[in-house]
């Protein structure tokens, strides 16, 4: 099962939730084989701050960026016509490449009739993996100056999927994905293919505003989802009212407790310091399992 932790507004507590959820699942008692935590916030991965994982491998990730052999270019313009991102432009007998706009789809090289386009792997970042106690961990980290995160996010997920496929045990695995904030391409790439999405929010006007955008996005992706309200006793009741109106389950409320903030600021895992809180995260996992097995309780508004 794959659970994505997303938000809308940044800074609501996605990483806190993802990390604590990963470390609160009592694997033996619920016959789970593996728990994986994927940090897909590749522009600023921060799960590692809390996990302090034992990193065991690192891999460079690149995308194929076109390189033109001008002696073969006839200026037919096919490359420019297929490119959705204006990363390659055909002018008379010259083709110009803008590598920073290239999404690495490989389309231009495919349609070039004279074979003038060669694909050069350009590094966009790294993926690395390791373990911390029971949790297998993979994170992506973008190269500074790179703007294109979806290909790197896909690499993190593909790596986890490949690992899952070669798992020797028959037992189920749980993958938790710490997503980037917001609702644009990187988030959609991270969430896509998940079985359930947890939207973490805070009970403030900004929290509510961005939550509604995130809800819209997840509904478009047709993945069941629920809400977790962090710092739940601060702010106002508008988020609760909104969820109630929309039929969205609020699966957990984390109180606005200074002790939690202090533990977080020290880079510690909350449930390590306060093990009694594990119960709440375990219940969250069980609720998600129950909801995704019962499609009638999906929080989707009818079209």
């Amino acid at each position, binding site marked *: 099962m794959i659970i994505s932790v997303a938000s809308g507004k940044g800074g609501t507590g996605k990483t806190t939730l993802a990390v604590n959820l990963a470390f609160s699942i009592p694997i033996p008692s619920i016959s789970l084989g593996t728990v994986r935590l994927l940090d897909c916030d590749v522009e600023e991965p921060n799960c590692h701050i809390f996990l302090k994982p034992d990193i065991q491998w690192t891999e460079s990730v690149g995308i194929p960026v076109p390189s033109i052999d001008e002696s073969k270019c006839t200026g037919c313009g096919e490359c420019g016509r297929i490119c959705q*991102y*204006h990363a390659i432009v055909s002018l*008379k007998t*010259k083709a110009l490449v*803008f590598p*920073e*706009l290239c999404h690495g789809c490989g389309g231009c090289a495919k349609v070039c009739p004279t074979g003038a386009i060669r694909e050069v792997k350009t590094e966009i970042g790294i993926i690395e993996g390791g373990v911390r106690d029971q949790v297998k961990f993979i994170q992506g980290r973008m190269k500074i100056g790179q703007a294109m995160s979806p290909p790197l996010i896909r690499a993190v997920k593909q790596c986890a999927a490949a690992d899952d496929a070669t798992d020797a045990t028959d037992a189920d695995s749980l993958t938790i994905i710490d997503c980037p904030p917001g609702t644009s391409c990187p988030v959609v790439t991270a969430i896509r293919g998940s079985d359930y999405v947890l939207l973490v929010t805070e009970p403030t006007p900004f929290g509510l505003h961005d939550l509604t955008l995130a809800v819209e996005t997840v509904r478009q992706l047709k993945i069941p989802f629920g809400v977790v309200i962090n710092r739940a006793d601060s702010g106002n009741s508008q988020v609760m009212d909104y969820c109630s109106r929309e039929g969205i389950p609020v699966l957990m409320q984390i109180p606005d407790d200074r002790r939690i903030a202090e533990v977080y600021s020290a880079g510690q895992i909350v449930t390590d310091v306060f093990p009694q809180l594990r119960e709440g995260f375990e219940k969250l996992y069980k609720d998600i399992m129950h909801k995704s097995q019962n499609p009638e309780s999906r929080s989707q508004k009818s079209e």
Partner: protein
Amino acid sequence: MKIAITSSGDTLESEVDQRFGRAAGFTVYDTETGEFHRVDNDQNLNAAQGAGIQAAETVSRLGADFVITGHCGPKAFRTLKAAGIKVITGAQGTVGHVIGEFKAGRLKTSDFSDVEGHWA
């Protein structure tokens, strides 16, 4: 020769549009015949990226030898340069006024883009 002027409207009284990539449209003026026509730039107004590149492609296809505009970003500038089109930035006033200035030789071509891109 043909000059493409970024314009906010169809006539010679229209103001020069201060942006190149996301200009409302281009007025293409033929210095030999004195004729002009306007081409819309709608497709680029809401483009997430590459608006300047596409606008440069458009004016290249229209056969322009010069572009006259307010500001031109780095990707647009690179594309125009590769297409052999000379760029004049800092133009202000109406399209008609700018054509007059051009014909009188009072406008200088630019060697560089004069603003940053909006995205990457």
